[in-house]
């Protein structure tokens, strides 16, 4: 009996001392954080992608709470609705950001751009890029090892097995730009999503001369300037054998797509044309 009593007393005493210690430490080292920071953070995706320019979601939330206006504070990952709720929470005006999306500027699928050499190294675009121009011998095109896929924190980009090219999932892509940074060849571009997702872009990054581009890839931009000639909005510039469409100026008329001899100009989310149906 006595043994049990002593045990209980000793353990109880240790417990009391421990509790007191914990209480003192908790009091002494307590830091006050604005509870709104936590609330704002809970509205954010929590991917810590850095697309807002801050080091992470907590940092962004802290900045939001501290800021007088949300003008330069936009989380592309959360989207407009979430930004509005954050603004409401803080009693501020949400700034409207144009939704961004990642676009792949390479159309060199396996079929269009046959393999000329075999790469026998680690499956890492940056590693393959350091070895040479890559399997297709296009020095600008996608290497297809998926550095962008592993960089994406929203599971929004995947390599299509059939084409060997990355495909962006529009519903998931937030336009944070992690894939564009990871790509050693800067094949991925971040641009505005476009009205109802309608976009026209050049799916090629090659600045090689047309003749060489044509030799290695059937889908490459050869810098023929036909698109620039047909564009009535002055949205297309051809620089260094490569056409570039300015999303700000493009009026989505799709004349350029029609004249492009190699099919390097791509469009997305346009309603089906009547003429297309009849064919």
């Amino acid at each position, binding site marked *: 009996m006595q043994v049990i009593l002593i045990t209980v007393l000793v353990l109880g005493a240790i417990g009391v001392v421990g509790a007191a210690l914990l209480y003192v430490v908790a009091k002494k080292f307590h830091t006050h954080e604005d509870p709104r920071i936590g609330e704002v953070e809970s509205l954010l995706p929590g991917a810590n992608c850095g697309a807002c320019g801050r080091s992470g979601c907590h940092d962004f939330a802290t900045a939001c709470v501290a800021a007088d206006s949300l003008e330069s504070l936009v989380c592309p990952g959360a989207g407009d609705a979430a930004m509005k709720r954050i603004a409401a929470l803080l009693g501020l005006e949400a700034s409207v950001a144009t939704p961004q999306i990642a676009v792949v500027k390479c159309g060199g699928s396996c079929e269009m751009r046959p393999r000329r*050499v075999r790469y026998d*190294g*680690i499956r*890492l675009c940056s*590693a393959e890029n*350091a*070895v040479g121009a*890559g399997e297709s011998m296009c020095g600008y095109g996608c290497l297809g090892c998926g550095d962008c896929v592993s960089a994406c924190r929203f599971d929004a980009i995947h390599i299509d097995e059939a084409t060997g090219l990355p495909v962006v999932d529009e519903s998931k892509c937030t336009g944070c730009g992690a894939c564009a940074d990871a790509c050693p060849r800067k094949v991925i571009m971040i641009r505005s999503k476009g009205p109802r997702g309608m976009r026209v872009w050049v799916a090629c990054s090659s600045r090689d*001369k047309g003749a*060489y581009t044509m030799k290695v890839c059937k889908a490459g931009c050869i810098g023929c300037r036909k698109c620039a000639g047909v564009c009535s909005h002055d949205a297309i510039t051809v620089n260094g054998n490569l056409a570039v469409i300015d999303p700000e100026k493009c009026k989505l008329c799709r004349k350029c797509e029609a004249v492009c001899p190699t099919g390097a100009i791509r469009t997305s989310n346009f309603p089906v044309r009547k003429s297309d149906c009849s064919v």
Partner: protein
Amino acid sequence: MGTTFNKGGIHPAENKTAADIEDVELPNEVTLLLSQHIGAPAKAAVSKGDRVRRGDMVATACGVVSACVHTPISGVVTKVDRSLTPYGYMADSITVKADEADHCDDEVRRKNVEPCRSIDELDGLDGERIRAMVADAGIVGLGGAAFPTHVKLAVPKGLKADVLIVNGAECEPYLTADDAIMRLCPDEIMGGIKLLMRAVDVKRAIVGIEENKPDAIVAMKRAAACCGVDVTVVPLKVKYPQGGEKQLIFALTGREVPSGGLPVSVGAVVQNVATARAVYRAALYGEPLMERVVTVAGTARPGNYRVPVGMGINELLKVAGGIPADTGKIVIGGPMMGKAIETIYAPLTKGSSGILVILEREASRQAVMPCIRCGACVEACPMGLEPYLISTLSRFRMFDEAEEQKVTNCIECGSCSYVCPAARPLLDYVRYGKATVAERIRQRKKKCEDK
């Protein structure tokens, strides 16, 4: 037993067969890449239709670290445009086509041109003059890295070199180009060493040659004995990567280049033997760097060939007997540090020390096994790094940790990948980690400066 460096190192099969140097007939057309060296590409100084003579400068150095380019054949410039490099990229180049009227270059080459100055005049040249001459001749390091030589000879302010290290180690398997040059023209190398010593203002030079080249050691020792300056020829124990700058300096002087530091911070300047010879020929004959000795291996007629820069790799391979049908890989440089090429329809450059044809069955990498933590890579690393660790850190993108483990110290010698019994691509990952960490360090510095 010769001296050697202190850490790591491996002994790959040497596969060297001493061969003399054979002259390759000048081709009818050369394509001179403007970026044959480390640094900024040269700027074309001729335009289409211009007539050039052998030895004319066709592109000038552009910026501090750059080298000019000369044509090895006389003829007409047919193209100033982009053309294919061996690695599959398109790059700026100048194409010169020989014309009927002017086809005596081969004779000129064979006759051994007249000196443009006497030996006495040569001894009277001062460092400044020599460096300018080297720059004008477009000389780059011929060991393989192709770093512009005149830049290396200009010792940075506040530092003082006291010894010239001449690299005759040629530790890469297969390559025998430097061996052949040392055996056949040791006096030209000695002449070059004398000039280089004056260019960097040192009183002492050490030539390091691996013991598997006994004839070269004898020839160089004989030449050193009667050259009149303090040149020592030191036999080195055969071990790869003996020819690495830091390893060679340690083997010959016992000095350790601090990590991130230049060799000159321990008072040493390293030059390759072939570079020394090129310097001598530039000074004595006014001959710019437009030809080099290339070891060809794996073809029907392997050997050492004196090849004009800009000649197509396919043409050289044809001269060397053609490539076997089951060719798997063609490498420029040695098998340890050379680069695999994507096409043979591209020109040779000043840095091409060898062309290696590897059969398909030997070229493919073995299946990767799990790491068995045998420590062979740690034992082999000449920089005292832990390749198994830094490759894993790089693979999992833990770049801060990789930086802590000094991934940037890696000299990419490939010893770790070579010895790994599990055939893991250690260097592939380390290289990736090294590049990424180096980029991050640059970004950080830039940020600091911006602030």
